[in-house]
């Protein structure tokens, strides 16, 4: 076994997606922890955005259950309205956003709305929140999801948040600005779009996992990028930063 958990590896992988000075739609839980790690390591000037109307320079000091909790507002850079914060996104001023979902497909389209038929759904999921806006407008999108065959699917039942739609230039044809999904981080691997069709390919496999296992747990015929390798394990600096934030070891198991 490693001296880090799978979730810790995912957090570190997510943190690496944030560059210094960027404005990021952070969300809660795993991504906000990744944002904290990035701030403490390579991205001390990253700004965290929260769609309820909050922007922060420093991650909150205190446990957050939601982005609206007091610790996320005390000492914030800005507490304002949703339009002001999400408008930055609409105005093309946001570098990246993190989102999860119940299903993602091979073109990075995400479903958080309906499993089955819209008019008679098998499962009614909670809905979109601001994810479609983030997926449409951020320079790039980072998708976090557990690697299971029913979650990484050939085609989502409902495109809540657009990736590359039907692949190729379909996203541009639909009138969408923003670079689209740049990476899918799972508990087994990292996937990235590759080739003119913008289909997600295997980019790296987490230490301890195998190609066969990853392919078997993917709902489409997953192809590998030419240089597929092992996901770089967390560095000591990265793990120190994470442990500084996660003092109680919430992500350790």
């Amino acid at each position, binding site marked *: 076994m490693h001296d880090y958990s799978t979730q810790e590896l995912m957090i570190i992988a997510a943190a690496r997606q944030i560059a210094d000075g960027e404005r990021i739609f952070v969300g809660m839980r795993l991504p906000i922890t990744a944002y904290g790690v990035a701030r403490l390591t390579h991205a001390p000037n990253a700004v965290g955005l*929260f*769609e*309820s*109307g*909050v922007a922060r320079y420093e991650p909150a000091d205190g446990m957050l*259950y*939601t*982005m*609206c*909790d*007091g610790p996320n*507002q*005390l000492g914030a850079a800005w*507490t*304002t*309205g*949703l*339009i002001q914060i*999400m*408008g930055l*996104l*609409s105005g093309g001023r946001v570098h990246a956003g993190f989102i999860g979902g119940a299903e993602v497909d091979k073109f990075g389209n995400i479903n958080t*709305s*309906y499993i089955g038929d*819209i008019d008679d*759904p*098998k*499962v*009614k*999921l*909670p*809905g*979109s*929140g*601001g*994810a*479609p*806006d983030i*997926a*449409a*407008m951020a320079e790039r999108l980072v998708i976090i999801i557990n690697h299971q065959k029913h979650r990484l699917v050939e085609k989502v039942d*409902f*495109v*809540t*948040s*657009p990736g590359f*739609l039907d692949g190729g230039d379909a*996203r541009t044809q*639909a*009138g*969408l*600005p923003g670079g689209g999904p740049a990476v899918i981080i799972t508990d087994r691997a990292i996937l990235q779009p590759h080739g003119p069709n913008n289909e997600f390919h295997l980019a790296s496999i987490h230490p301890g996992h195998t190609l066969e296992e990853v392919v078997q747990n993917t709902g489409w015929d997953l192809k590998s990028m030419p240089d597929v390798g092992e996901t770089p394990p967390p560095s000591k600096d990265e793990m120190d930063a994470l442990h500084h934030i996660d003092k109680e070891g919430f992500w350790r198991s």
Partner: protein
Amino acid sequence: MMVAESCGRGDGTINHHKLTSLAEAIAGLVQDGAKIVLGAALENAVPFAATHELIRQGRRDLNMIAPISDISTDMLIGAGCVAEVTGAWVGNVSGGMGHNFRRAAENGQPHPIKINDYSNFTIGMAFFAGAYGLPYIPVKTILGSDILKSNKNIRLDKDPFTGEPVALVPALKPDVAFLVVQRADKFGNSHIWGSTGLTQEASIAANKIIVLADEIVEPEVIASDPSRVLIPGFGVDAVCHVPAACHPAPLIGRWQRDNAFFHNYHKETREPGDFDRWCDEWVRDLPDHAAYRAKLGGQLEELRILGDAPSAPANYATE
């Protein structure tokens, strides 16, 4: 806020106080079938006290409009008050899915609901248009999403300047907006701070506004800082003094989030019968919000914010 049709002369309400009980405000201002905004700040300042009172008074066929409603909408669905849900997200931020919402959407239990999907930004634009008299707003942030298929109100069109695709989001005008504020005077002037989500746009778009004030203060307190007023007092129809009206959601500088309460709700409402028991215990068997606070007792007191992190003063002196 009053609509154009009610712009008659001599309403003369400004110098008359609007303080009333929440029960009276809802009895007088909320009809069956109304389009309701029950908090638009997302996960803080949710007017749960009004959620309870709507259930107690047995309102029916409501259209609940909000970007994100945490478990407020789920409770109203379970209690049979809701015909339509208009918004971006319904569930339990702490616990996951809302069981009543799922039952209604998947099996029509306790009755079917119609769902009008929006993303957060597009419902923001719908409120903005409703507030400020714009027929619709053209947006790009919903392009490519199947929400354009599920919500027939939003129309895909071409930008007449460039020919590029745009989605036209028509104005939304709720009948009644409820909002929780940190402090208000008896005339409806109020102060809000912390993130506000769509509170301003949704309230101004609404026909009627009901303010749930954590504290009632002298008019001079509000007038000392007119830039902290989010919605104008002259548009407010009723002011209700309801401390901790937001519980279990937080209110900045006043109340912490009661995360355990959200988790318990999730566990205790898994089956329809479970929800009925929960709802009897926490809503129907209690006469009002004061009884709810008394039932919470020490659990509520532990959430009360006692610390002090004051804003730097702003000076409005004129000479």
